[in-house]
């Protein structure tokens, strides 16, 4: 229906007769056409209006050509095909403009002449943003040629002059560009820097003095390689790299507003633990993702793998007050689905599909039909608690529905009893009815008491005071459940005028229509569950198995594999180097930044796939490169040629993130609790000395320290953290009990030393894993002459050197 702007421009160009005629046409426009448009049409059809009538804008050139909801207003050169003229002529009773009355025949004649002459229009567009719903950035066909969608392939290493520098294939790609720009790479970092870099990178912890010295002394040619292998084999590796993934997965344990219908996720930590385990086991990335989307539909997955479903099962959900209208509730539900579409497409595909909720994507080849095709998958997927142990499928399916129903009924009953409103009799009757169903469902679950007592125990609380929420405390986090999902479509039931009910239908999928302009009250054409058309082959069929989660996951690694591989390789690159190859890690569309080294990204992504999507392979490939092992010190020639270090003429120096910083403080003070896994612990609790990855992550009350140090907002997918340096962080460093107490603990570690000089030497080893210089000892002794040891240790923990990641 909609005509492409580019095509019209082209046709204007072809039609434009001669320059002279064009000038005459412009004159005609200025004298006869523009005054009529301005006087008769702009009041309803102006780009300055929030909602121009019929989506038609006549005060810009592009608006006139693009037309409104029913198509183009004019076809230059073809008066007979121009709807604007038809409207002016008052022939069609449905299309008569202006509504105030037919304009004179002379005016109609002017418009006819002007359109016939190619409709020259000298107006400059004030805004390039198209307003009509039909506007589209890139066609699917054109989109299929976009770089990020092309197959990845292994490429020959480029020829370089200084090949002796290179240690891995990626070095050749980097060096080739460096040589073209005439910038030399930096020399290798010294052994002490290198081991520190590798430890922080793979474990988020600092090496001990002894480890540093042993490595510095190790003269074996493969000492560094062995170090990397050792670090990759340690479970601390999963704690570090699992946390990176949790940012992508916007991991948290509650909702932005934790209210009656969107309570916290008490077993979210089991998903976090699964991620850590999976990373440590080096589960191939494709499988890693598939399990998170559809572990319950993968025949070879174990029950324990269902923990992976926390990716969807702990996703943010908005409160749905049953007293709101059906439309409002449906909108809130569609906001939930939107979040899933966004997390999956930006997180796993680098596409901003959520832009296509109200209109076709303005820049990328993504339609509203694509959007709703994916949203339908999530409209057919419901978040539930699933038992952690094996259970027969029929019992489970029934239990999951009963559970959802009980949660809903319990909420409704309490609502009707607690706030009966002005129809107390009706409310009481409803409460009775809800109560009866609660009892009936609980009774039904009694039948599995023998086999699955935990299910009976779980349902017992419904209809009692035990489900009433008290601020801050949820159910005990150790019950044998996981926050997961199952296939059940959600319908919103508006049949009761006072209460909007949720209707979950297990095993039934809900295909949404396209909601025109994003409004749930304007359903358009159906949008069956399916994958993005630009990534699918010509035979793209709708998903058929249940919600389609597994097919979606398979499509990502089938049709979408080049994109998925490029995306994750780029992310891993950024986590190693501090900066990605492609500057927008979650947007590989036309508005994203193109990679600085496209061949390198392609080659690495292709070999990543060939090596079984193995993260550990990728870490080795990157960390064993000469580029990674470079010094990070600034160099004048590099700064002037490439100030942003796009070419990687040095390693990027960084500061630690909050996890590494906090864990390193605990480690230096000798108090770090290295126990792995288990329910989360509150950072507010002074005795919490566990690694930060085990901290409680809240969407409603993200802990102040996490916020202070730029932790990603867990309410939405985050492309990466933006690390800031602020005075408030320094107040934490100098004045917080956390720093002061751990500085004191650190001081206690050296209390027994013979003299202050020895204490300082030990402290340098514990905090900075090196010996102090003479100057540094002097500074320390001067300070200690008047200051206390704990204040001195706090100073050491406060230094730039401590938080720096060179």
């Amino acid at each position, binding site marked *: 229906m909609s005509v492409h702007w580019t095509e019209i421009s082209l046709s204007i160009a072809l039609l434009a007769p001669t320059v002279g005629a064009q000038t005459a046409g412009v004159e005609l426009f200025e004298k006869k056409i523009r005054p009529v448009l301005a006087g008769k049409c702009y009041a309803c059809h102006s780009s300055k209006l929030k909602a121009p009538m019929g989506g038609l804008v006549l005060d810009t050139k592009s608006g006139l050509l693009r037309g409104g909801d029913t198509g183009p207003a004019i076809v230059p050169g073809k008066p007979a095909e121009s709807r604007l003229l038809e409207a002016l002529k008052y022939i069609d009773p449905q299309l008569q403009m202006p509504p105030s009355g037919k304009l004179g025949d002379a005016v109609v004649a002017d418009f006819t002449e002007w359109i016939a002459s190619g409709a020259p229009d000298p107006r400059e567009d004030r805004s390039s943003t198209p307003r009509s719903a039909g506007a589209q950035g890139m066609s699917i066909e054109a989109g299929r040629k976009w770089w990020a969608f092309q197959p990845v392939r292994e490429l020959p290493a480029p020829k370089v002059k200084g090949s002796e520098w290179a240690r891995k294939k990626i070095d050749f790609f980097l060096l080739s560009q460096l040589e073209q720009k005439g910038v030399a790479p930096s020399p290798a970092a010294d052994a002490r820097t290198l081991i520190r870099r590798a430890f922080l990178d793979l474990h988020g912890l600092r090496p001990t003095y002894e480890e540093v010295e042993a490595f510095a002394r190790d003269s074996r040619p493969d000492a560094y390689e062995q170090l990397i292998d050792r670090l990759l084999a340690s479970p601390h590796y999963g704690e570090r790299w699992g946390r990176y993934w949790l940012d992508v997965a916007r991991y948290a344990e509650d909702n932005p507003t934790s209210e009656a219908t969107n309570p916290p996720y008490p077993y979210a930590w089991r998903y976090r633990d699964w991620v850590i385990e999976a990373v440590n086991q080096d589960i191939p990335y494709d499988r890693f993702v598939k399990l998170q989307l559809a572990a319950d539909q993968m025949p070879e997955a174990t029950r324990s793998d269902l923990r992976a479903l926390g990716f969807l099962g702990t996703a943010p959900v908005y409160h749905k007050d049953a007293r709101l209208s059906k439309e409002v509730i449906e909108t809130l539900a569609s906001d939930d689905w939107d979040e899933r579409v966004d997390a999956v497409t930006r997180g796993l595909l680098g596409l901003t599909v959520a832009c296509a909720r109200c209109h076709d994507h303005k820049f990328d080849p993504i339609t509203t039909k694509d959007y709703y095709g994916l949203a339908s998958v999530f409209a057919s997927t419901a978040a539930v608690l699933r038992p952690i142990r094996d259970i027969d499928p029929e019992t489970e399916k029934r239990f999951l529905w009963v559970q959802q129903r009980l949660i809903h009924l319990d909420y409704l009953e309490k609502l009707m009893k607690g706030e009966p409103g002005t129809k107390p009799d009706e409310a009481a009757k409803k409460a009775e009815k809800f109560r009866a169903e609660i009892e009936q469902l609980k009774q039904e679950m009694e039948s599995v008491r023998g086999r699955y007592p935990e299910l009976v125990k779980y349902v017992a609380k419904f209809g009692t005071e035990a489900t009433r929420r008290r601020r801050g405390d949820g159910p005990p986090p150790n019950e044998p459940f996981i926050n997961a999902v199952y296939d059940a479509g959600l319908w919103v039931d508006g049949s009761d005028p006072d209460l909007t009910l949720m209707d979950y239908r297990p095993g039934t999928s809900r295909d949404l229509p396209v909601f025109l302009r994003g409004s749930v009250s304007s359903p358009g054409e159906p949008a069956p569950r399916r994958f993005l058309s630009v990534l699918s082959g010509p035979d793209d069929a709708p998903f058929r198995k249940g919600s389609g989660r597994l097919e979606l996951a398979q499509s990502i690694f089938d049709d979408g594999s080049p994109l998925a591989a490029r995306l994750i390789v780029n992310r891993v690159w950024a986590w190693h180097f501090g900066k990605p190859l492609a500057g927008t890690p979650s947007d590989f569309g036309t508005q994203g930044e193109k990679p600085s080294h496209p061949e390198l990204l392609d080659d690495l992504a292709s070999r990543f796939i060939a090596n079984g999507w193995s993260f550990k392979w990728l870490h080795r490939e990157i960390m064993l490169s000469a580029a990674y092992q470079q010094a990070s010190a600034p160099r004048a020639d590099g700064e002037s040629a490439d100030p942003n270090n796009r070419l990687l003429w040095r390693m990027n120096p960084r500061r630690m993130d909050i996890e590494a910083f906090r864990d390193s403080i605990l480690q230096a003070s000798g108090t770090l609790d290295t126990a792995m896994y288990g329910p989360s612990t509150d950072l507010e609790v002074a005795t919490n000395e566990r690694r930060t990855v085990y901290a409680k992550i809240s969407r409603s009350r993200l802990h102040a320290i996490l916020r202070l140090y730029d932790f990603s907002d867990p309410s939405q997918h985050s492309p990466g953290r933006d690390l800031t340096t602020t005075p408030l962080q320094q*107040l934490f460093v100098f004045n917080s009990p956390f720093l002061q107490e751990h500085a004191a603990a650190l001081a206690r570690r050296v209390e027994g030393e013979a003299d202050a000089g020895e204490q300082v030497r030990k402290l340098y080893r514990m905090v900075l894993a090196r010996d102090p210089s003479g100057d540094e000892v002097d500074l320390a002794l001067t300070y200690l002459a008047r200051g206390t040891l704990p204040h001195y240790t706090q100073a050491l923990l406060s230094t730039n050197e401590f938080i720096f990641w060179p």
Partner: protein
Amino acid sequence: MNQRISRRAWISSLCGGFGAVGLSAAMRGPGPHFTPKAKHVIFLFMTGGPSQMDLFDPKPALAKYEGQRPPSVDLRTERVTGGLLPSPFSFAKYGRGGVDVSELLPNIAATIDEICVLRSVYTFNPTHTPARNLIHSGNIAATRPSMGAWISYGLGTENENLPAFVVLSPSATGGSLWRAGFLPAEHQGTHFNHSEAEPDKMIRYLRNTQLDREGQRRQLDLVQALNRKHHDSFGADAFLEGRIQAMETAYRMQMAASDVFDLRKEPEPVRTEYGTTPFANGCLLARRLVESGVRYVHLYYGQGQVWDDHKEINKNLRERCPDMDKASAALIRDLKRRGLLDETLIVWGGEFGRTPVSENGDGRDHNPYGFTMWMAGAGIRGGMAYGATDEFGFKAVEDRVSIHDLHATILHQLGLDHEKLTYRYAGRDFRLTDVHGTVIQDILA
């Protein structure tokens, strides 16, 4: 006047001698786009949704049709509602514009010539959280940056020793309301508990409980000596340099903030004028913050949804209004005396209003369809009422003001074009006003 200059000069003298690294980049935003009227905003947020029919929007028809339920009030709200509930409070016309104000608000009535009452505001959601998200961030989901973050991003800060966006709330919950969202984290609101009068109870980690100033300086000198050695050996680096400076700023901030936040430094007559309730403390503190260069102060009236009067509304309003009235009016008068009202925009209101029909007999339900807010100072026409609700006060019908219009107008007074203040994220340019919003030209002086 002199006092203002001297304090501001004193505070800015503290940040002299800074290099161009790190912090200074955050000082300036992409704005302003044109000459601003306002340099600062104080938002007096009445959490829960105050009742327009009892405060600013008199509706005699409520008494006439008491208890009835004409079809025009059959609008769906959050709860079940009954018949029309008249206001027991009398209204009179005040100021040069003859603006109606309830007997509950004598002090606001007396300053009405500075105030523009917006009687036709509407929002899109009848539930607290989404409506609150909308008024804070332009969107019902809790994901977008808060208005204060947008303003911090747009204009930067005037005082490196204080955050640009300050939140005053007796409770730390609701952090998502002052989020930076996808904007850089430095723009997030910094929360202080204004129900305390002593600075170190308000600001986490402001006071070093172990070292006096001299001891702190010695410790910091040691750290900085080590930092400089480290910096020299590594080479020029923006982070290393930025952190050295941030430490100095933090050190000075302890003193600056201690001064700004210490209400005990206000003369007794001024404190008496505001009152000594938590909200009064907040208003006074807001003035002191604005005076010290803070861009945006978001002050929550109290803990929780205070104005959410589902029952016993008349009794509640009688108890609650005197404090709000006294402190709000004192803030206007005080800013005016100090010559600050011309550059400070005050915005008053909640996430929605209340229904003209009763709930539980003596309460009022949430009303997103039409409610009252007011603005004062910084180029807003005082002594006028703008827009109107229907005869019962349920729905805005004349000169309707959406939350996006309100945001567009606030930004406009700050010299920011709401269509130009954009941030590129997730593939598109985001705005506080999304794709909506029109500046309310008729209320501008």
